[in-house]
């Protein structure tokens, strides 16, 4: 597919390692997922009280977006409606679904129920960054970079969006992986063309 859009930043979180723009920026392999996520939060000196009420999928996606956008994104370049988010994963919100359903055996927890939708992580990233544009959550067996590129390039090429955060965020119990891409129309330092091949290459670079 022909594209003229660019991946201007990327961040992956997988196997206890955080990679920003191809460089390992944090590693902690000596703990479980909850401990790993909070260690990322602390390492990057993040301060966002809402973080603590999120489920693990929202925490993972939100942290990945924080590191993706830090020092790489200038919100002043865009109106809130010009920035969107397109995400996918394999397990929807099943990690939180299981926890919510366990709660119903005692008293159903509204604070767990609200996270039983995969797009809540998009909402959390939008609230944090005041992104108000197009967004969508797709469920895929495995990451389909070609489909994501087609969707995001359409939104950018039709001028529906001017910038888009896209990629993958998946959590199920102790298994997790996130890979987010900032896609913009202008080239930046170290940016690469937003193609299926480049997207797959970054997605798989953390193994």
């Amino acid at each position: 597919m022909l594209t003229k859009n660019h991946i201007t930043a990327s961040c992956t979180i997988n196997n206890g390692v955080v990679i920003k723009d191809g460089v390992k920026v944090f590693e902690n392999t000596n703990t479980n997922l909850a401990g790993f996520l909070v260690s990322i939060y602390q390492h990057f000196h993040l301060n966002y009280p809402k973080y603590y009420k999120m489920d693990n999928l929202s925490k993972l996606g939100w942290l990945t977006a924080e590191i993706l956008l830090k020092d790489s994104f200038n919100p002043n370049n865009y109106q809130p409606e010009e920035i969107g988010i397109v995400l996918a994963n394999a397990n929807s919100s099943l990690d939180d679904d299981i926890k919510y359903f366990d709660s119903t055996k005692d008293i159903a927890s509204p604070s767990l129920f609200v996270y039983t939708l995969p797009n809540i992580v998009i909402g959390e990233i939008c609230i944090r960054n005041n992104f108000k544009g197009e967004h969508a959550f797709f469920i895929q067996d495995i990451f389909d970079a070609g489909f994501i590129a087609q969707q995001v390039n359409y939104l950018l090429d039709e001028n529906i969006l001017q910038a888009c955060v896209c990629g993958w965020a998946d959590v199920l119990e102790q298994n997790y992986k996130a890979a987010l891409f900032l896609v913009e129309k202008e080239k930046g330092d170290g940016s690469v063309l937003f193609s299926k091949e480049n997207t797959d290459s970054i997605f798989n670079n953390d193994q």
Partner: protein
Amino acid sequence: MKGLNKIAEPEVFVVADNILSPIGKTTAGNFSNLKQNISGVKQYHKAGISSQPFYASLFDGEESFLKIDAGNYTKFEQLLIASIGDALQHSGINVADKKTVLIISSTKGNISLLETGEYNDALRKRIALPTSAKLVSEYFGFTTQPVIVSNACISGVLAIITGMRLLRSGQYENAVIAGADVITKFILSGFESFQALSPQICKPFDSLRDGLNLGEGAGTIILSTNKKYGQNIKVKGGSVSNDANHISGPSRTGEELAYAIKKAMEDAVISAGDIDLISAHGTATVYNDEMEAAAFALSGLQAVPLNSLKGYYGHTLGAAGLIESIVSTQSMKESLVLPTLGFEDMGVTKPLNICSELLPGNFKNCLKTASGFGGCNAAVVFGK
């Protein structure tokens, strides 16, 4: 820029559709019963779902949706298969064509399996939406990769917009878009925990509205860019926005839904004065309906005839955007808009023209909106 692109983009036509609900098994059957003011919502006492009596629109437990042995398919998958099968029957669409894509919309799919099965990897795979999409795709013999949309209560409208764009881009010529959700303890207990359920048939936009009803159902809409359908109703435009405000409460101003409406109308190359009918989300919760009224006022749509179908179907979640869009296109075909069952006394602070009885007329363009958890809003325009 946009104008130049539009010239190259093909128009998207509605080829066929189906509604499978407690009200009826076909679009025509549903519309015929809706005209007689028949609602699927009633009171249930089902200990397996809730310890309390509740109002919802549910299939009777004993119904069979498929003529074949349904043993391999869950209720969720049976609903999708039955709905898609009926819609395809009237369509002439070749599902095996590389130019035909299947799009599935659902919020919770097979989540009810968590209630009865011991959680293990096999159950995880059975719950996963790609498993259902694969089973449905193989049942009909689709040859392209199915697309699955799961974006809370805008899933159905977003699935239609996704299909419209996939066709406009030229990647596919036909899109079979189907949505379904099944109401069991998981979903009902969640809305109960939010105190969001009405203890009666819900009352959209009414001064005494006190919450929503849940509903089960499936809807299928088939789209094509093939010019042989040129006389059919079109999907003219669509847009999605986010409130960036709260994950479980709607925008305080309605500005973000109004933005989606504005962009959908721009995409359809029409203005507010061209909209003849609004199919609102209208869940009958206090905050949703007030937010929507604010958005319609901001959009200059306060005089346009509007309905909410939640008093008939309840909130059918991932199917809602499809079912309600199909009813609206049927209204355009039959020149007859349905009332808002449950509405009596204006209960939002911005003026709206809410249909409270059958309204005949010529309806050329219809706006369908939806909003949901995660701050999501979507708007789509259907037109003649």
